[in-house]
């Protein structure tokens, strides 16, 4: 009984463990500390985006614009650093820009009744366009001021041997977990996804909550953009292409329902790790990147099928 519930509630975790066990059989180097940290670091960008996406998907929405916001925010941040802006200000401005872009989608969705898919698809196209215009299609270097070095450290440094992006991911995880499970805002997010009518008639300001949710998603996409830009010491205009799909995949692998109203932030982290482990495993096993895409798609499909079968039998 108890074990059954545990298994059905933690399918993604069990999936991750099985995957890791399988890979470590195939390759002895896989389980090394270095490789583990490597996986965590590679996962952090997707995980940060996917945590924002989790909020959006719990409200029964979707955010396709995250990859473009990542690129735009990266470009803004790189030029700010290049202009010798103090680090904290550069980071804050970038995150606010991301939140603003997300909030704009939120406004379009809630005040103009545009479906999230369409609104953020438009956002994805326009923001990518704006990034290309702004960067003139060329990478923007973070320059040679001192601040560029501390910016690089922010994205590539370590604290107690743990890569900074991983620490950031953990902090964001704790924050998101707290918001979703311990605050009024979190309750409202779930209620809106469960039944928007009921939420409205319960006196919830549905429009405001939705705008905040897309703003959060935008802010976290911008943070991901900062991490990426810092590591590369430059912003690429084509950065983040297709990242929205990896984020959505992580959320869904983590057991959050695209229909809304259900989901856990912990699941999303696991989902992101599954994708990260898979990427890493295929790399260290020297699978060509063409086959990697097929393999990744197949695993996601398998996970989702297992999950939905479990649901209909319950």
């Amino acid at each position, binding site marked *: 009984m108890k074990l059954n519930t545990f298994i059905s509630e933690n399918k993604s975790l069990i999936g991750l463990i099985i995957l890791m066990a399988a890979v470590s059989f195939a390759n002895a180097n896989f389980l090394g500390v270095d490789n583990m940290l490597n996986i965590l670091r590679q996962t952090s960008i997707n995980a940060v985006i996917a945590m924002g996406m989790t909020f959006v998907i719990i409200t029964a929405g979707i955010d396709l614009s995250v990859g473009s916001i990542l690129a735009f925010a990266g470009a803004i941040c790189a030029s700010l650093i290049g202009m010798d802006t103090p680090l904290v200000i550069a980071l804050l401005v970038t995150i606010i820009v991301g939140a603003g872009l997300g909030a704009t989608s939120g406004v379009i969705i809630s005040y103009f009744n545009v479906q999230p898919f369409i609104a953020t698809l438009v956002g994805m196209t326009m923001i990518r366009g704006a990034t290309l215009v702004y960067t003139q299609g060329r990478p923007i270097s973070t320059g040679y001021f001192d601040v560029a070095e501390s910016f690089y450290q922010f994205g590539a440094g370590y604290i107690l041997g743990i890569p900074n992006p991983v620490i950031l991911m953990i902090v964001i995880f704790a924050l998101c977990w707290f918001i979703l499970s311990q605050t*009024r805002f979190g309750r409202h997010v779930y209620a809106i996804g*469960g039944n928007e009518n009921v939420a409205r008639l319960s*006196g919830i300001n549905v429009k405001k909550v939705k705008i905040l949710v897309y703003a959060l998603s935008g802010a976290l996409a911008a943070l991901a953009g900062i991490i990426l830009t810092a590591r590369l010491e430059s912003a690429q205009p084509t950065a983040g292409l297709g990242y929205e799909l990896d984020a959505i995949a992580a959320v869904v692998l983590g057991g959050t329902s695209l229909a809304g109203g259900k989901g856990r932030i912990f699941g999303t982290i696991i989902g992101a790790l599954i994708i990260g482990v898979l990427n890493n495993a295929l790399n260290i096993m020297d699978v060509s990147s063409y086959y990697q895409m097929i393999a990744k798609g197949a695993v996601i499909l398998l996970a989702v099928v297992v999950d939905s079968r479990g649901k209909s039998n319950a």
Partner: protein
Amino acid sequence: MTILLELQGIEKSFSGINVLKSVDLTIRAGRVVALAGENGAGKSTLMKIISGIYQRDAGTVVYNGKEVTFANARQSMDAGIGIIHQELNLLPELSVAENIYLGREPTKLGKIQWDVIESQSKKYLAQLKQDIDPKTPLGKLSIAQQQMVEIAKALSLNAEVIIMDEPTDALTDIETAVLFEVVDELRAQGKGLVFISHRLGEIFQMCDDIAILRDGEMVHQGPVAEITEDELIRHMVGRELSDQYPFVPATPGDVRIEVENLTAHGAKEISFSAHAGEVVGFAGLVGAGRTELAKAIFGENPIQSGTVKIDGKPIRLRSPQDGVKAQIGYVTEDRKQEGLVQSQELGTNMTLTGLDRFCNVLGFVNKASEAVTISEYIEAFAIKTRDANTIISNLSGGNQQKVSIAKSLVPEPKVLILDEPTRGVDVGAKREIYTLINKLKAEGLCILLISSDMPELLGISDRIHVLSSGKLTGSFDRDEATQENIMRCAVAGQTNG
């Protein structure tokens, strides 16, 4: 009399809890059997087992002399068993006709014959005296009209056995009378019917036999003629219940809510006021505009003109949020679409409107104090549930209704609007709700009660207003109000438009 369907020794458990214990039931041709029992007694579960929605753990179902097991609702439907569900199972975005023929649309060369669907739908609706355009999106209809569509759907199946799980709980006397005429016809045609209702009067009026479930056990079966209402109640609840409408005269305080010349969609120039510590009832037929009025006062239905004052101060009502802020509580008539998030837990649903009570300035929820309040309400309302984490859709209908009422009370409102508060609630629990209304009234709450259950309205209101076609057509004090008076006003506006 031929036996159409016979159940023997039916057992059913949900996650280890036994909700049906060796239940027998016989459905005969040309007879209506009433299935009675408290909320959560297992009535709907038993019916869902007949119709293949749930699978029995043990026991046999014999249909037309053959043992059957239906794997899903489609199979039972094809075999000639129609069910009208307690919780409406219609799709609000589709048209009335599409809903009636959903999943079995007649086709010709692969093309759906819309004209047939629409004319047939119209025919069945006409049989129920409903003048509804089959092309209307279902969501645009009132709950009562939706219920009539659900009934039309069952008729269109041409089933041998028709199960009606609380078909009347959303209907007023007029539609109920129409439904009963149809039931009479079906009985004359030799169909076997099961009728579930918490309005006991209807059982005596309509049914031939009665079967009573208590806590999953069949405690009595026999002809309706051989049982009295008191005996029926005793079988249902296992003890005596006296005085169904306990009334305590009001000691009204100050004027709490004043509605002046309010016009909104479905309501025209309505004025009334209500005091702290009184229950003001609203009577009217389906479509009279009572729910529209309630929603206007709550901020959901945009006000076109007129004012609403609370404690003498005019309030702005642009959204339900304003209504909640003005300390108005509203229990919706439609708990599935508007009242509760069906897929989420009992506890989070109950505190959704009143969550502020448990939040600090930063919006952190104090789960411990929240849990205390939730369990207090579960106990006070005798909500039948394993714990506060049960998913709403797994509760019986009546228990969902109790959660819905508790939800509106958590924010501690000054004015409480109850829209059909005892829909689907059993006798015992109804009485508990009336007692609760009296208690809240004594504490100074101002209660506006919308109900289609006339004895209930007469039984617990201090005053009654009657609406017809969106207008206020009559007002009565408790001692002047009679069923005839009210009915006269309720149809008054209808004839002169």
